[in-house]
């Protein structure tokens, strides 16, 4: 082969190797970015779970009256019990679904029976998707207006978000 042809071949090889390394680098970088985005997404979902839990405590149909001195993390036990009773009625479920989306909210009094305040778990219904599950717990004071006492409890908030497949 002529010398020029050999040199041309060398040039081609250098370019091919260069492009190969570039492609590997780009693929590796974007995979790393994708992993980072998934972590960020998970973090944002955790924040949304906490925001949801706090919004539950702020609902006027659940929060204590200002006279109880229970502070901002106070929930009326009687109101919670009533909501747990009517949560599956037509109209009620749709009303709260607009506010809470796909989530399950359970109230756990430390010296009482757990109550499910809201339950819209999409997993048994929508089998075509994969779901991310984010759970948060926040403490709350429970005011019983019948006995005028404050006890301790916590909210278990589970949010479900569909996994977007790449």
């Amino acid at each position, binding site marked *: 082969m002529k010398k020029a042809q050999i040199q041309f071949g060398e040039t081609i090889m*250098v370019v091919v190797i260069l492009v190969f390394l570039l492609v590997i680098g780009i693929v590796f970088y974007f995979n790393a970015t994708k992993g*980072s985005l998934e972590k960020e997404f998970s973090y944002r979902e955790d924040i949304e779970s906490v925001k949801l839990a706090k919004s539950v405590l702020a609902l006027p149909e659940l929060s204590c009256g200002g006279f109880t001195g229970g502070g901002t993390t106070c929930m009326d036990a009687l109101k919670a019990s009533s909501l747990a009773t009517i949560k599956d009625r037509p109209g009620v479920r749709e009303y709260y679904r607009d506010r809470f989306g796909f989530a399950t909210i359970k109230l756990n009094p*430390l010296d009482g029976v757990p109550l499910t305040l809201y339950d819209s778990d999409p997993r048994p219904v929508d089998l075509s998707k994969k779901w991310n599950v984010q759970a948060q*717990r926040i*403490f*709350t004071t429970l005011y019983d207006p019948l006995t005028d006492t*404050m006890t*301790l*409890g916590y909210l278990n908030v589970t949010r479900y978000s569909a996994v977007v497949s790449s």
Partner: protein
Amino acid sequence: MKRGQAEIIGLVLIVLLLAIGFMLYVKFGLNADDDSSRASYEQTQLGATFVNSLAKAQLHCGTSSKPYAVEELVKEIAMGTTRCDAEDALTAYLNAPGTGVLNKTLDEWGVNYRLLFVKKSKNGESGIGLPEFNNTNIPVDQRCSPRRDRVADAYLVPLAPVPGTVEIRLEQCAG
């Protein structure tokens, strides 16, 4: 190919590899603290709501039929004016095996915490006679301590008219 051209291509290759390496370093280097800040946020939410709710929760003390809020009892313990066996009542409320608040929640969830009641005044910090509470399910040498990085949340109980406050403080260590 001329020698100069070959050298230029080599130089471009090196620069590209350095650029890719730098991008990867920035990506992983800047994200190194994200996990710790994320965990801190979740801990703070749990801790802040715990101390705020605990302070308002009520328990019976002595023979009185009227329940007392935790913050009331803490204030009386700190001022030495308890009208019932407040230290024992509060300790049992928090830590009684199987029924204590801490046993049913933080201990069961595996939270590595340290709950303490600290009186703060112009003379500094001091205890008020209540023990420090830890997760009893965690080995002693791995429990949360001042030597470890931790997230702290506190509720302040004023001792008015006496100067000073009592801090109901929950510290959480990672792992």
